């Protein structure tokens, strides 16, 4: 999957101390009533939530912190969201659609997190049926992506065809010393820079200057990137028999330590599975969409009790096969951005890095991909 090239449009240099001007510019570009999502500390964990512009972290937060503990996924797909409410008066039922969410700006998400929205778009935005609640937010949200000045021990974006300065979102922010180089990525990023330019705090910068800084940041590598080589993972084309990885013996070794909890799926920016449940209150109520996890025992249970994936082995295999085989077969892209959150959050160390390395090694031992795989790279 070829990485998106660096932006080539307008570039501005902004001192880190006047980050608020960029925030105001973005809020104005996003439209009236726009809300700001920024990193915020909730209890002991850094997560994303709507904050007042003045309560957003200062620029040095991004220098000091590698990434938030929870992903910005909840800005686009909240953990709990009403699909509809209903009023039922026996013979007359009324289903009411909730009001559309306000426009939003997501300040300072990392390139891996911004890329995760491009991945979710393939499923929730461009599919034959669009997930309207996701699509509405996605259309009204401006993503300000903050490239990584340094990588963390659990980072692994380079193992999944990304870099610490991958181009994603609507506006890229490249840290350059105490300054920030701000470049527009999409047409929607343009107005942000126009508003910023009027603000007076920023001055012009050249594309070469920005691409030089971006290139240096993108060149950083990670430990996981070095140890996890997924190129050998043959993505069998549909129609050639069950994927080889499905029958591998590694799942029986990896699965027993799993707690079947939802931690890995809930901290993951690319896990999008959800459940729809009704919350009746008398004759009225709300149909609520909430995050759900394929690791839960009842995720696949059908009416009448049959469960095609009753034990941990099937469920652990399902999760990692989805990310490393099933999704790439359909969308030609890993369902992972290497953000490293599952590496840190899993209480028993069962995460995409180890599974990716072990699975790739198991496939190497099986020998080259079958002749049906055209260029042997599997993608």
């Amino acid at each position, binding site marked *: 999957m070829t990485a998106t090239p660096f932006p080539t449009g307008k570039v501005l240099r902004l001192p880190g101390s006047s980050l608020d001007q960029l925030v105001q510019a973005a809020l104005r570009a996003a439209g009236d009533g726009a809300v700001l999502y920024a990193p915020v500390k909730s209890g002991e964990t850094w997560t994303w939530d709507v904050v007042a512009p003045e309560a957003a972290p200062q620029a040095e937060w991004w220098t000091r912190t590698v990434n938030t503990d929870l992903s910005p996924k*909840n800005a686009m797909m909240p953990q709990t969201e009403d699909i509809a409410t209903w009023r039922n008066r026996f013979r007359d039922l009324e289903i009411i659609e909730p009001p559309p969410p306000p426009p939003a700006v997501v300040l300072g998400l990392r390139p891996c997190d911004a890329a995760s929205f491009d991945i979710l778009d393939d499923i929730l935005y461009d599919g034959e049926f669009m997930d309207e609640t996701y699509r509405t937010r996605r259309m009204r949200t401006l993503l300000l992506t903050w490239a990584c000045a340094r990588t963390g021990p659990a980072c692994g974006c380079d193992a999944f065809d990304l870099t610490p300065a991958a181009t994603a979102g609507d506006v890229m922010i490249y840290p350059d010393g105490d300054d920030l180089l701000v470049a527009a990525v999409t047409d929607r990023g343009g107005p942000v820079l126009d508003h910023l330019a009027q603000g007076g705090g920023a001055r012009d910068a050249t594309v070469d200057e920005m691409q030089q800084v971006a290139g240096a940041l993108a060149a950083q590598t990670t430990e996981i990137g070095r140890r996890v080589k997924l190129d050998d993972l043959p993505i069998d084309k549909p129609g050639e028999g069950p994927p080889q990885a499905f029958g591998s013996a590694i799942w029986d070794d990896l699965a027993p330590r799993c707690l079947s909890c939802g931690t890995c799926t809930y901290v993951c920016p690319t896990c999008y599975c959800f459940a729809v449940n009704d919350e009746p209150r008398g004759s009225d109520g709300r149909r609520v969409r909430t995050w759900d996890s394929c690791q839960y025992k009842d995720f696949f249970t059908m009416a009448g009790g049959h469960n095609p994936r009753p034990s941990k082995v099937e469920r652990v295999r399902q999760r990692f096969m989805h990310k490393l085989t099933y999704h790439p077969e359909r969308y030609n892209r890993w369902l992972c951005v290497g953000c490293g959150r599952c590496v840190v959050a899993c209480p028993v160390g069962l995460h995409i890095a180890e599974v990716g390395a072990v699975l790739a090694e198991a496939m190497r031992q099986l020998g080259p991909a079958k002749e049906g795989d055209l260029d042997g790279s599997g993608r």
Partner: protein
Amino acid sequence: MAVTEHKTEGAPAVTPAGWQPKIVAFCCNWCSYAGADLAGTSRLAYPPTVRIIRVPCSGRISPRFVIRAFQRGADGVLVAGCHPGDCHYSTGNYYARRRFLLARRFIEYLGIEPERFWVKWISGSEGSKFAQVMREMTEAVTALGPNRKVREAE
């Protein structure tokens, strides 16, 4: 991390004038319910703020019932049962006593004002005690105003 649109609970912070609390009472069928009945038949006046839920025994009530009542809008909850030794099932209220000695402290620990959750032994012959408890409890809960904690937004 729950980004919740329903962050604020439903009830207003300030107590509207003439506000009447909603009190949910779990009354054991053999004693407290009979006590409440007696209070009625003896024409004892007590505020109409209580909604009685009849249960076979105080031992039947799980502490989560209390949280569910507060969730759905109760301002006060009473658990009433037979005096130790009078239990129709002989040991139900002894287990309930241990359970609610703990639950009272734990619910208080989570932040709900202690005056909102009462546990009383009221026998079938104590109609007056039932009316008295109702008056005292209504007074205490009215002083506290509507309960906003653990309560669902309307």
